[in-house]
């Protein structure tokens, strides 16, 4: 097991190199000149040339890639073209709130999603099932910006319980995490339900019942664990997306996350910031995938990583 994990982690490095190359190529190939965009509309050709030179944008693209990689290997992500602020600083300050928000959204979505899924499965085609699935479908169908605005109107403007946005206190995390988690909770509930319904029909459950095990032990001790594989897969994917930040929710709740930074940087063709963010997202995604793979082994001992 340990060997496997180490192997996988080492495998991330070449993957990231490939990602960095693709990201670099794509962002440089989309039309738009950062020098022109930062110099402003009154700038002359001469001034723009000076900026291009300063930023190495007048060098061949491969040369630029090498300069960039050289910096990366020395742990230097460069600085924002626009503001000259180090990229590490721009990202660093937003990364923690983003991760915290993702964990919180994922956490409650998992707990409630699985609970609703279990209830719906064991009471299949009875009222808890209908109730659960109505909740789930609403969760998927409600657009998160709408949910956000409605919550602000209700809890901030009318009741005055929660701040309209920001991340300066833990209260600021409540509404955004609900808006972000609602859809995921719904998805998890549906996957848990259908998977658990299948499992409850299996032979080993019937055997368990005939041995007189309590329904509690059967559902939580045996059935749920082996039903969770599709749930973990979906949850892992969703978590990866969450870490990338959500422009919509960050905008509605004025939350200092990564999503808005990415959009702003793309609009300004702020190459170093975009590259660093995309690299980081790729890294997070790969890491989440690794954890998901390891969880498979834990949930179903038949899946083994010993070689």
């Amino acid at each position, binding site marked *: 097991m340990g060997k496997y994990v180490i192997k996988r982690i080492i495998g991330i490095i070449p993957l990231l190199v490939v990602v960095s190359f693709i990201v670099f190529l794509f962002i440089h190939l989309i039309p738009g000149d950062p020098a022109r965009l930062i110099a402003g*509309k009154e700038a002359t050709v001469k001034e723009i040339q000076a900026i291009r030179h300063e930023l190495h944008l007048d060098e061949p693209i491969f040369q630029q890639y090498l300069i960039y990689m050289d910096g990366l290997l020395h742990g230097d992500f460069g600085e924002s073209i626009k503001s*000259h*602020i180090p990229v590490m600083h721009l990202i660093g300050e937003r990364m923690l709130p983003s991760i915290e928000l993702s964990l919180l959204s994922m956490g409650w979505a998992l707990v409630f999603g699985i609970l609703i899924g279990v209830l719906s499965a064991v009471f299949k085609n009875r009222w808890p099932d209908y109730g659960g699935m109505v909740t789930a479908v609403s969760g998927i169908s409600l657009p998160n910006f709408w949910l956000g605005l409605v919550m602000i109107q209700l809890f*901030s403007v009318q009741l005055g319980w929660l701040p309209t946005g920001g*991340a*300066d206190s*833990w209260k600021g995390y409540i509404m955004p995490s609900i808006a972000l988690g609602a859809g995921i909770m719904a998805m998890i509930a549906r996957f848990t339900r259908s998977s658990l319904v299948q499992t409850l029909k299996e032979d080993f459950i019937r055997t368990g019942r005939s041995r007189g095990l309590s329904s509690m032990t059967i*559902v939580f001790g045996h059935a749920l664990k082996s039903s969770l594989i599709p749930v973990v897969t979906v949850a892992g994917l969703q978590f990866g997306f969450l870490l990338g930040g959500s422009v919509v929710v960050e905008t509605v709740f*004025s939350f200092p996350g990564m999503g808005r930074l990415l959009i702003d940087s793309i609009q300004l*063709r702020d190459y170093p910031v975009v590259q660093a963010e995309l690299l980081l997202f790729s890294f997070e995604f790969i890491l989440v995938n690794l954890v998901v793979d390891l969880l498979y082994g834990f949930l179903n001992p038949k899946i083994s990583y010993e070689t």
Partner: protein
Amino acid sequence: MTMNYKKITWLCLIVAMIMAMTACAKGPSDSESASSAKNDKDITIAVNQNFTTLDPQNVSDTLSISATHAMYEGLVGFDKNMTIKPVLATDYKVSKDGLVYTFNLRKNVKFHDGATFDANAVKANFDRIQGSKGSLTASHYLKNLKDIKVIDDNTVQFTLTKPFSAMLNKFAMIPMISPKAIKKYGKNIGLHPVGTGPFEFVKWNQGESLILKKNPDYWDSNYPKVNKVTFKSVPENGSRVAMLKTGEADFVYPLPEQNVKSLKSSSDISIDQTESTIVRYVSINTNKKPFNNKKVRLAMNYALNKDTYIKVVKNGFGSKLDSTMSPKTQFYSKQGVYEYNLDKAKKLMKEAGYPNGFSAEIWGDTASDTMKGMQFVQQQLAKIGIKLKVKAMEQGTLSNEIYSPKTPDQAKVQLWYVSWSPSSGDADGATRSLFSSESFPPNGANTAYYKNNEVDSLIKKANKSTDPDEQAKIYKQIQKDIYSDAPWIFLGVDTILSGHRNNLKGVYVLPDGSINIKNAQLK
């Protein structure tokens, strides 16, 4: 299938309740949320974007300029109407030939880090800008600067390579940084602002907020009158308005037009309107057929109902553009409006040889109000047979399309729906980049490819003049010439809307869209 699932139901319910309770239980214990913990002398300002940098010599967006102007000051500055007044200089002199500017500096001024403001500090700042080789925004303002001399501790002298009438406006855009801080922080000065302004830097939370506190040693002891100012970045219109309603914000800018009605009825909130220097227009490529025909351009101007434009596109807030610049820009001279007259427009089209109109493209960015504006123009011009194709492009792509053609003949732009605001409120900034034949893209923003030899020589003449009355006369003639040539469809001047709680006084938005908080005061 009749198992006893009661226990499971109970378990689920209990877990759910515990989760919900832990979420609420923490509530009252540490309720130091933004609204309740606010001190009497603290104010919060909600704005719609993120700050990009706090380096006052490298800012280009008006929001970051608002923040840097609270902490920094220049030798001169703008008042509420964008006229120049001395700030860190007590007075200034311009030589007859317009080449030498001499400033007498204010005495007993200290930077926030204790460094003394004097002639050497001024020189250190200008050396920094000129040494940046164009990478600092402020260096664009100093294209004509030859050298700077320290005469004595409190006098500096600037010499220009050629006369430049808008130079004082440029000086107003160059705030002074503590020379000690320039040395200490170098490139990172954008994260550690140290100026002479009424407010000192406390903390900048990336993407979220900027916190400033009172400068107790400010040279004008009447200011500032509040202890702490927090700028919050709240991009969503609805959330910003909600903050004003709840009192989480004392001032919000911009205030969305559609909320004006509902807020007007509130007794705690007031709405302010400022006429801006932002003009909206469609530039017409005068180098291309059929737009090279003045009659066609005039017909397009007559065919467009400006009253409806302001009502529909600007939600009723704005005024008709009656010159090439806003009334708030230096040396503005009213020209009149091409009033809506469909018959006249049709007649002009006929005379120009296009009785049945023609097809063309109108370009613009993807912002929703730009789309609305382009569709409006499309609908209006259809009435004289001009079939417009609306082409909205993301701003980087659009800028590429506009600025990559090297010669006027390569240019593909026909009509461009766009806005302009001179960066330092001066007539040169509202004229040269837009109408001088030296400013054809990629050298400037003359996307009308407008060339008029008289205007070209008048622009040069105005820059050489040192007499404001003469300059006013020249710019009057320039505006008249351009307006009658109609290289644009002249649309409107934006009105800036901001809202504040009634217990706050003295915070206002300048015509260029920057916020001034120096006079902020709470009742």
